């Protein structure tokens, strides 16, 4: 499959009063056409900032992409100016966000909010844009779409609003959809519906997806590969089965352990990764995970590089422990989801 997005050594900083926040550090990854890449990591690990950097949506100041390149369909997004980027945003590359309650403009009709992208990028006239918007709403499963299209966001439920967001994201049939925790704010049954919807649409449209989440179990049935981020770095990336069955980074192992066991009868205690992530202003020169790492050795005072340990499987760790069979329960999670 052809490369759609190729990110190399991406680096994003926030220049704040308290110091320089090293939010994204030498991030290197790629997405192939039609592929779904899952991105996990605890809150603050730089998932959103990485994607916003690609979209050129970092608030600037204080933020700035300070290094690296990001080839999208062969063109470097980092070097582009806002005008060039605007033609790609919402057109070839779309992004949907975590909170559907705040991500739609409360004072504009749904019709306006969908149609404006169509009129802008596809040069449709009002009537064509409206017809297409109704079609999109139907596609994302909004009942009575031709009636609801002139409603305001507050007249929709959270799940319905996220469907509207997806309709906006897919309006111009992008080659890449970035979904930043699109289901985190929704309750579990709605989450599953949204995931199913995206799976259907993905095969229909054939787009690539970057799906950010901190819920690993959700990715099992959705992603082709998973990328794990910690403190603004990529610590492990691997095909989905490989990552679940043979995780090699201590942080990934910790994350997998913290997934609730759906098959357990009693309310079993989760085992979250102990400790806290490092201060991104006073960034350690050691491996950033070292203070929390049960496998740490003396070599870990140096930050390791990403190393290939198997087919498309990369790990940033000196130890690269073999995951014990703590993950056996996980297969059941995958069968259920």
């Amino acid at each position, binding site marked *: 499959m052809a490369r759609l997005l190729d990110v190399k050594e991406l680096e994003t900083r926030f220049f704040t009063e308290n110091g320089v926040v090293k939010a994204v550090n030498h991030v290197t990854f790629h997405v192939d056409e039609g592929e779904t890449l899952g991105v996990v990591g605890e809150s603050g690990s730089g998932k959103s900032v990485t994607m916003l950097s690609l*979209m050129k*949506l970092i608030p600037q100041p204080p933020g700035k992409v300070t290094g690296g390149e990001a080839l999208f369909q062969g063109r470097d997004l980092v070097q582009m100016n*806002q005008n060039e*980027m*605007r*033609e*790609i*945003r*919402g*057109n070839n590359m*779309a*992004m949907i*966000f975590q*909170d559907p309650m*705040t*991500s*739609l*403009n*409360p*004072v*504009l009709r749904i019709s*306006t909010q969908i149609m*404006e*992208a169509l009129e*802008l*990028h596809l040069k449709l006239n009002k009537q064509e844009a409206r017809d297409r918007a109704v079609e999109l709403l139907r596609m994302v499963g909004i009942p009575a779409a031709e009636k609801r299209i002139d409603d*305001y966001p*507050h007249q929709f439920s959270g799940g319905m609003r996220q469907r509207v*967001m997806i309709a*906006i994201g897919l309006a111009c049939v992008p080659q890449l959809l970035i979904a930043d925790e699109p289901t985190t704010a929704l309750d579990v049954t709605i989450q599953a519906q949204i995931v199913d919807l995206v799976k259907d649409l993905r095969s229909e449209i054939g787009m690539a997806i970057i799906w950010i989440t901190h819920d690993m179990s959700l990715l099992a049935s959705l992603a082709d590969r998973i990328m794990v981020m910690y403190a603004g770095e990529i610590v492990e990336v691997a095909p989905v089965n490989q990552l679940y069955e043979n995780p090699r980074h201590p942080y990934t192992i910790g994350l997998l352990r913290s997934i609730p066991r759906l098959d357990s009868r009693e309310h079993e205690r989760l085992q979250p990764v102990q400790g806290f992530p490092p201060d991104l202003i006073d960034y350690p020169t050691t491996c950033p995970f070292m203070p929390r790492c049960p496998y740490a050795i003396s070599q870990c005072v140096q930050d390791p590089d990403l190393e290939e340990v198997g087919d498309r499987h990369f790990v940033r760790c000196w130890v690269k422990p073999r995951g014990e069979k703590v993950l056996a329960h996980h297969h059941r999670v995958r069968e259920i989801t």
Partner: protein
Amino acid sequence: MLSYIIRRTLVSIPVILLMAFVVFYLIRQVPAGPFDFVGDRALPPAIRENLEKRYHLDWPLMWQFTSYVVGDDVALGVCNVAGFIPGCDIIKETPEGVSRGLIRGDLGESMKQRGRSINTIVGNSFPVSLQLGILSIILGLLIGIPAGVLAALRQNSWVDYLASFVAVLGLSIPSMVIGPVLIVVFAVKLGWLPAAQWGAPPPYTLGIIPPLTWDFFKHTIMPVIALGTGLSASIARLTRASLLQVIREDYIRTARAKGLKERVVIVRHALKNSLIPVVTILGPMVAGVVTGTFVIELIFAIPGMGKYFIDSITNRDYTLITSVSVIYGVLLVAANMLVDITYGWLDPRIRLD
């Protein structure tokens, strides 16, 4: 919408009547009455008594107010039918006076400018005050909103600092200073503009719209600037703060993610939201403009209603005070209703029913 307006109007009637009663009552508690003096001369007791009778000042207070609200004929009629009501014994003796009743559209007769109907006084002076007030608010919005938007978009640039500086200046210099300064510069020194009076006498089209002549404008420019700068300063500050807040909202990021031009993002997605708090302060602002017109009308010798309001208090012109207060009350109620309607139009989450 229409039913909302009707309902709001009906609800506000008791409020205005209560306010009228409070003014009606309080002014009568202030020492000295309307007929104690004419100029410096004390009136002979006999004449004074006659006059007080004419305006029913000898009636019990509740009956005075009743007759102010519904008219003498109704008050007398009630007493003729049901004479047992306390106070009716006094009332039945008296001839019918001048009040036709507020609810029948009669604001009464001035006690000091004897024989002059307050309807005529208000009819001639209120439109002038209203023109001054409305034009000042329009100026405030026309300068304040763009200045605030510009300052927000160029946050922490020299444009922002300049706008903030001018806004603080505009807020801290009261109109009673700006007014005379304008007069000295543009009327006295340069002789470009007239220092006083109003350029177009009533009657006006639809009772309010002035003729759009140069004569009208040259008389309006300075008073409107004097009153409007303070308004534009507070509107600019609020618009700036509100827009800076809105720009950080998630839906603005969504709009940018669509690839919209920055101008479209601001105008279509941010501006309407950021005007919601601006509209909310317009209600209280109208009250401020009303008091502002008192001062400005005095400085520029504008024949508006403010002069009558102030004179009526010093003169103890009981009826005029009450009726002018009622007019201001109605104005504030109407302004707040307009604000709420605008608010509902800007923000679809607010339902007006």
